[in-house]
Structure formats: C-alpha cells, structure tokens
C-alpha cells in the first residue's frame, strides 16, 4: 500500500508572529518496499516531511495515509504509539537520545515501551547490536564512552530493535567518515534486502543516492520538485544542474564525454558500463 500525502501542509508556530510555512500543499505518493532517497537543500523541508511519517509532526492542513492509518489535520489522531511501532524514525544526530546506563538497556528501551518483556527486549538488543556492526561485548558498556560514530550505531540499533516495517532515517551519514558512511548505507541496503524493510533516507550524498537507492524525492522550498526512479533521475542531468546539485562522478564524467562528442547512452550509471562504452567508441574510430 503506498504512502499518500494529500495537500499536506505544515506551518510551524501557526498563528504567531513566528509562523513559518515549511511544507506547502504536498501531494506525494511513496511506494512501500523500496529504498527512497529524499534530497533537497538545507531548509527545504526534508526533516519536516519525514517527521510526518510517524506523526511526530501533524499536518496543519491536508492529510497523510500510511499503513492502514489516515492522519489528517481535521481530526485529532489517537493511538499514535501504534503507528510509531511500525514506522521507526531515526533523527539527525540520534546519538543525543541515548540515556541508559548500559547499551543493552538503551537498545531495549524502545521494545519495552511497545510492550515487549524485559527478556524479549534484551534478546532484541543482542540481535540488533551485531546487525549495526558492533559486537556483543559492547552491550554492558555505557553508551557515553563510545565514539560519535559508535553512538550513532547504538541509536540506530535502538530503533531497529522495535522491528518497524518502515524505517526513516534523517541524514544518517552526516558527520561520519567515508568508510563509516559507506558501512551505514550498506546496513540499510541489507535491512531492505534481507528483512524487507521499506526505507526512507534523507541525504545530501548523490553517490549514495545513485548506488544504494531506488527512488528519489526532491524537495525545494516546501514543495516536492520531482519524484522519480533513481535511474531516470540521473539520466537527465539538467534537473541536477538547475538545482545546483553536484552529480555523482559517473554521471558527470558521462556528461563531459557526451559533451565532447562521445556517443554514449545516457542511461549508463556505473563506471564499468561507462568504461565499456568508451572502449567501444574508441574501437569504432581506430
């Protein structure tokens, strides 16, 4: 079942001198079972958008259909907790939400809130800690003595332990080293392929979008600018140029080659294919 935004509007501090229209009548269909990237400039409303997915923010106008729920501005929604169990949201810099004495307890906090028993929750903690790339010896340590990147893994584990069907991540790789960011993205791909999670990732990294995602939503000043598949998004770099987004290396190399007269298919999206196409072109002219 798709996730449907209908004329969804969010105004911060509505009715005060500080009001700000962060989302302006958004109409959007998001598919389940995919990895969707949400991109756009800082302040374009990405975080505001994704916080509607588990009803942390409620629309000030319009409505949102997600799973079997409808959340609309006209009626006050109830039992949001049941929605939050199924839609796990990892905030930007989630390391700030850790508070327990041990990592095990912190990871078990979410499942326990959603009704799991102590043993079940601790078992979940054991399961997910290895998933995020830390080993079980970490479980009894304090979350406050970890490095920033490790803290973030623990925070993500805390959401994974709730076993949500839909996982939403707000800039999960921000501030990580390239290797850490890559591992992070690979974790999400694994969650998608092995555990069939629907995944939404807010990101600024076009390489990640190209390599790991299926669909892309482009936000611009509170509007959805485009939404399409990743392959068609990178076929036509004019949108990228127009929005001042730096394209991935493959795409910019492909376009430079095309500009100087190479006859290369615009649908090529990997270095291998590009290399082959160039070799073929050169072969023709020899």
């Amino acid at each position, binding site marked *: 079942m798709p996730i449907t935004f209908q004329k969804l509007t969010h105004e*911060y*501090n509505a009715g*005060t*001198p*500080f009001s700000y229209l962060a989302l302006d009548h958004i109409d959007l269909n998001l598919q389940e079972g995919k990895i969707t990237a949400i991109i756009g400039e800082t302040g374009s409303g990405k975080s505001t958008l994704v*916080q509607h997915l*588990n009803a*942390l923010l409620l629309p000030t106008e319009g409505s949102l259909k997600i799973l079997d729920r409808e959340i609309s501005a006209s009626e006050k929604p109830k039992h949001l*907790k049941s929605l*939050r*169990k199924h839609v*796990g*949201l*990892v*905030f930007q810099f*989630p390391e*700030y*939400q*850790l*508070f327990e004495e041990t990592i095990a307890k912190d990871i078990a*906090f*979410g499942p326990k*809130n*959603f009704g799991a028993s102590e043993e079940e929750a601790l078992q979940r903690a054991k399961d997910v800690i290895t998933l995020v790339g830390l080993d079980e010896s970490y479980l009894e340590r304090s979350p*406050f003595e970890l490095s920033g990147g490790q803290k973030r893994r623990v925070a993500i584990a*805390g*959401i994974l332990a*709730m076993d949500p069907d839909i996982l939403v991540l707000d800039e999960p790789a921000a501030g990580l080293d390239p290797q850490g960011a890559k591992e992070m993205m690979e974790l999400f791909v694994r969650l998608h392929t092995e555990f069939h999670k629907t995944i939404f990732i807010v990101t600024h990294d076009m390489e990640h979008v190209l390599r790991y995602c299926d669909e892309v939503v482009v936000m611009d000043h509170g509007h959805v600018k485009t939404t399409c598949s990743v392959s068609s998004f990178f076929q036509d770099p004019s949108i990228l140029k127009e929005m001042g987004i730096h394209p991935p290396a493959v795409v910019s190399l492909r376009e430079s080659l095309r500009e100087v007269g190479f006859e290369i298919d615009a649908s090529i999206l990997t270095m291998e294919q590009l290399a082959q196409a160039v070799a073929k072109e050169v072969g023709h002219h020899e």
Partner: protein
Amino acid sequence: MNNIALGRYLPLDSCIHRLDPRAKIIALILMMVAIFLPAGWIGYALLGCAVLCLTVLAKLKMNFLWRSMKPMMFMLVFLLIINLFMLQNGTILFEIGSFPIYSDAVFQTLYITVRLMLMIILTTVLTATTKPLDLTLGIEHLLSPFKVIHLPAHEIAMMISIALRFIPTLIEETQRIMKAQASRGVDMEEGKLKEKIMSILSLIVPLFVSAFQHADDLANAMEARGYVPDRTRTRYKQLHMHIGDYVIFAICFLILGGLLVFLWI
C-alpha cells in the same frame, strides 16, 4: 513549547524599543517599587492605566501579554485556595456547601493578582522590547559602580547573557529529544508511574549531557579566543541616554512620587 512568550524579544520598531536599556531597567525598578506600595484601588487603577499606555506604545498585543501571564495562572489559583482556607476574617460573602468564603480572602487574592499581573506585564515589556544582549549590557553598566566593593559586574553580565543565549537552544534540544524518544514509544501523557519516571529520565539525561557538552564547547571556544574575564575590554556597542530616556525617568518618578504623596495624605 515554541510559543513561550515570557521573556521573549519581539523585534518591532517602537519608541520603547529605542530607549536605552539602562533607562528601561531603572524605570522597571521604580515601577516595581510603586506596585508594592499599598496604594489602594485608585492607585492600582492609575498604575494600570500607565502600564496599558506603555504596552500600546511598545506595540505589544494583548494576546502576547496574555500568553506570558498564562504560566502564572496555576500559581494564582493555588494562592486563592490557600487564602480561602487561611484568611477567615471580614464578612462572609457566600458559602459553598458549608464552607464560608470571606471577603478578606477574595480581596487579598485579587490584590496579589493585580500586583503580579502588573509586574509580569512590566517585565514582559522590558524583555520584549530589549534585545537580550542590550539588556545584559545595561545590567553590566548599572552594576559597574559596585565594582568598588568587588562585585564582579562583568562576570555577572556575561553569565546572564550566556544563560539567555542558551535558553532557546535548550528549548530546541528538549523538543528534539522529546520527539526522538516519542519515536521510541515514550508517551509523556499516558502510562503508569514507573513509565512516567522513565520517560522523564529519558528526557533529562540527554538534556544534561548536551548542556554540559555545550558548556564545555563554549568554554573552550572562549578560551581559544583569549577571553579573560577581568581584563578591561572595549565595546563595539556604546550606550547613550537620549531625551526620551530622561522623559521615562521623569514619568516614573512622577508616578512613584504621586503615589507616595497620595499615601501620606
């Protein structure tokens, strides 16, 4: 939480906004003294008018003032209840069941309510029309004569301005942590006592961690730029008193003096 009005600066352009912060602080103190004189209802009516004129001049909306007073409502109700039980003098106005309500209790509460309201409005006018930094600059200037008795005026002002600077940051952080924990199934409203305690802990601990982090970062940043509290420093912003500032003094002295004379007679 975002619509907290108490203590918030409103960037409008009014003659009150343009006054010298020192003048405004002194005027506030004078008016506070006036409010605490047992001036009777006529006196309060007079003060009320003055305060009303002030808010109009400052271009503040009633709505804003009302929101800044809201947090006090709880206290006032509490006070009324205590007074109803403690003050059993005067005439009986009416009875609820068999519990008599005395006129003194009601009047006493009304008295305090009016005083508190006036005080809150005045303070709100000060904070809404003065940038926090100007306010602390004003405080520092007003405290500097006390340096002779080794009062650390500059340090006090610096502490106040840092505290003011971090209030919005901490509010923002609180909201963010609340949302993050809500995503993990924390429900601040429902739940048993134990769950409630856990949900408060899940908010307080990260908040303290980040507050200490901010404090540490700020201290390092200040030290890295060579900040030494007791060095004399020059200022980019210089305060100057203008005619308007003296007019405000004059008005405040008139009101205070008037009330004193009125009481004397």
